[in-house]
């Protein structure tokens, strides 16, 4: 593989691979080939099969979904390079440059583009779309729960709403920080010219892209009854919509594995001269630990889903007790992924805020080492705690004690994250811009999420709380209140570098307060009904819970309005916001040393790093 030279843009050869197939392929051709593959598979497989047998339906649908994904990737040209390898060749230099080059205008956002900045923007837009879809479903859920009686939708639709909201949000949140910022900003932060594997970078995005229509198809196949956890054997029993879930997870797992390898390799191998490990910006550390944690976690989910798929298509019975299988097998596999996954989501969000806090408080990050110890400790412990989701499963009551111990110990490294943030704030004079406001919102929300997590990790208390709305409130405080707030902070902070413009301040503030106040009303209401005994994932509830539920719904609408305002602010600022200076916040990390638009290879001269980026402040001694 050739690498792009560091020559300035003017002296670079102009790519002119005129006759190459590559120039003709884009998202449109991908969709066409994907759809042809999908329908072709569908009709070919359907012929001669007894479609009143659900196993056959599942076979046909699953295979059609995979065919769509593969067809799309062929159609967009993802496999041209690998195919050439088979015949002992590779893309020509010109073709490679064509795939990356900055001269193709807006069209490159719809191509198999290998420029990490393009991939970053693709992820950003993709994440916002997913959050929009998931958020719309959240509004539907809360509308149905506004009053008892399930008047808005039927229980079938309600169950689908909860499950698809859950999985859409989880997918969105896994990529919300590492996707846009990890791809766009992080390579620049470490002084690299691109990611280690630019083609894999494009692949990770477009594979993910193919999962989105698959996930949405669940709605047209009758929805899913299982929630996002897709517990077996309910998933074995579920209707055709479940295939969409299974296929989505398998496709998504491929995407995260590819992205995870790429980001990890980039950080390990491509840091600028002089950027020793103790000079790496904390966001980079956090993002790397997060994806490194995802690398072992997601394949477990994939395996769990492959087995679900096999149960549903050829009746293998992995999870069917009638033939010697067990739902506990699924639960274990799921949570071996599931608990690390919550930290995969959380860590980049916190790390972004740790990057932000020193800049706006104009003080060094307090105890860089504690921050790393916190992340590493969390990542290490997080693979040893999964069965705290199964205390009441009856699987191994004798392991409840040990799992409680490991789980409670996570509060120690988590405490270090708080220490780093409040240590940075201590005696500071924060510059109260939107990114900084997000630091405060994070502290409040994550504190509540963290403390309620301690109750839940305690077996006797979980005896009462497990499976209740209390759990739902708890994990929204961590996932949404903490991680999403971190990502919004990151967006407000890096927006100038990613779009060349400042994020509209007024819009940002207004949306911030709508979201944060609404959020706390929303989920405090859910803590109350949870403590009162309302189970989670219920379409209907007893009258006893109606007040708090109505309050919750009001809070949800406030969040919804806030999110729309934020979306407006983003779109408006992107199009016609104030032009951003090169370093609007006066920060010291490398991404602020490059102009907008960022040159193709980021730096004209490879940067040399001589200190960590936190050298703010008057000397203490």
């Amino acid at each position: 593989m050739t690498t792009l030279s560091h020559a300035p843009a003017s002296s670079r050869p102009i790519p002119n691979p005129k006759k190459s197939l590559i120039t003709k392929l884009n998202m449109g051709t991908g969709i066409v080939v994907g759809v042809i593959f999908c329908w072709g598979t569908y009709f070919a497989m359907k012929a001669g099969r007894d479609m009143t047998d659900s196993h056959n339906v599942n076979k046909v649908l699953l295979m059609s979904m995979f065919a769509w994904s593969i067809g799309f990737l062929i159609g967009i040209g993802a496999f041209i390079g690998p195919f050439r390898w088979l015949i002992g060749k590779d893309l020509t230099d010109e073709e490679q440059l064509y795939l990356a080059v900055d001269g193709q205008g807006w069209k490159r956002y719809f191509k198999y583009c290998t420029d990490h900045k393009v991939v970053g923007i693709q992820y950003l837009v993709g994440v916002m779309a997913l959050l929009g879809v998931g958020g719309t479903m959240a509004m539907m859920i809360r509308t149905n729960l506004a009053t008892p009686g399930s008047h808005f939708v039927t229980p079938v639709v309600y169950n689908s709403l909860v499950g698809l909201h859950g999985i859409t949000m989880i997918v969105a949140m896994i990529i919300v920080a590492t996707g846009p910022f990890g791809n766009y900003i992080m390579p620049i932060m470490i002084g690299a010219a691109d990611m280690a594997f630019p083609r894999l970078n494009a692949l990770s995005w477009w594979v993910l892209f193919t999962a989105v229509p698959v996930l949405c198809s669940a709605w047209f196949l009758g929805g899913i009854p299982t929630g996002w956890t897709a517990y077996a054997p309910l998933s074995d029993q579920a209707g055709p919509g479940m295939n969409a879930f299974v296929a989505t997870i398998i496709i998504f797992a491929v995407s995260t594995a590819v992205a995870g390898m790429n980001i990890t390799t980039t950080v390990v191998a491509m840091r600028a001269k002089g950027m020793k490990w103790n000079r790496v910006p904390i966001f980079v550390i956090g993002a790397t630990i997060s994806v490194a944690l995802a690398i072992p976690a997601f394949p477990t989910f994939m395996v769990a889903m492959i087995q679900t798929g096999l149960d549903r298509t050829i009746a293998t019975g992995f999870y069917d007790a009638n033939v010697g299988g067990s739902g506990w097998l699924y639960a274990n596999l799921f949570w071996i992924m599931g608990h690390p996954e919550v930290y995969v989501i959380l860590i980049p969000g916190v790390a972004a805020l740790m990057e932000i806090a020193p800049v706006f408080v104009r003080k060094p990050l307090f105890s860089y080492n504690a921050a790393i110890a916190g992340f590493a400790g969390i990542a290490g412990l997080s693979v040893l705690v999964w069965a705290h989701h199964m205390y009441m499963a009856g699987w191994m009551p004798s392991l409840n004690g040990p799992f409680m111990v490991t789980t409670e110990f996570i509060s120690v490294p988590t405490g270090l994250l708080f220490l780093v943030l409040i240590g940075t704030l201590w005696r500071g004079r924060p510059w109260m811009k939107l990114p900084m406001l997000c630091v405060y919102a994070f502290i409040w929300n994550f504190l509540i999420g963290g403390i309620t997590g301690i109750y839940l990790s305690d077996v006797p208390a979980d005896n009462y709380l497990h499976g209740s709305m209390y759990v739902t409130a708890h994990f929204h405080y961590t996932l949404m209140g903490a991680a999403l707030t971190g990502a919004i902070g990151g967006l407000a902070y890096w927006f100038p570098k990613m779009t060349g413009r400042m994020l509209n301040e007024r819009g940002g503030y207004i949306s911030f307060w709508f979201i944060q106040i609404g959020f706390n009303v929303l989920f405090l209401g859910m803590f109350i009904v949870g403590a009162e005994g309302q189970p989670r994932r219920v379409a209907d509830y007893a009258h006893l819970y109606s007040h708090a539920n109505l309050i919750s719904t009001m809070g949800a609408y406030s969040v919804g309005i806030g999110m729309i305002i934020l979306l407006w602010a983003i779109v408006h600022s992107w199009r016609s916001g104030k032009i951003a200076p090169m370093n609007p916040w006066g920060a010291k990390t490398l991404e602020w040393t490059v102009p907008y638009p960022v040159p193709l290879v980021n730096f004209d001269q490879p940067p040399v790093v001589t200190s960590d980026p936190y050298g703010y402040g008057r000397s203490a001694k």
Partner: protein
Amino acid sequence: METATPSKARTTIGALLAVVLGIVVVAGVGLTLHSVSADPQPKLYATKVGTITAADGKTYNHYTIADGVYPDPINSKAHGNCATCDGGHPSWPSYGPYTDFVLPANSYITVTLTVYDSGEKLNTPYFGSVVGTVDGTVSYDGVAKTSLPPDGVEHTFTLHGLPTSTQDPLFVNVPLPVNTDAEMKAYNADPTKLPVGHKVVFSFLTHGAGNYVWNCEYPCGDSTYQGFGAVMGQLGYMSGKVSVVNG
């Protein structure tokens, strides 16, 4: 302001319009979903036939409802003109023509179900017992019984709800008898020829107003895990609503 930044007023108006647009879009999606998922089932209102004195010595208003249980949704007529019913599930059994019932509060309800389907074994034998009828029995073709053998049940009518401070509990379980293979023979050859069917009659008392649901406990979702997928996961075939209303 270096570039042609839009004026403050225009920006504010733009923002407000965007918010309105956003709300309209979300509400539109919501209303679409609501209308798509809104219960399409017609409701059956109980008819008053007089008064009756129950075993407890009290006199109640007496209401009746009648419905059927069919081996397919076409014969059940619960799903409109159902030639290609629900994307082609001509084999799904179904109650019909009604699956949603409206009953008056504090009344004596007599239900007549005519059943035309075959059946076999329950997942949970408990649902072979008659529960919650006025005298603990159900009349099967005129014969009063307190239970059916758990391996000879067609479907069940199992009525339950959320216990809440504002709603009285109501629990009724009535197992339905099978049509034997011999009785189903003509139907299996030609699905327009229903068997004669069995007449199931039972009565129960409603209490205060409230919202309840009913479902079938016979595993009729074929070829899915424990027979509770497919038709059993959908509303309006083997499940529905029972509203008990005042007045």
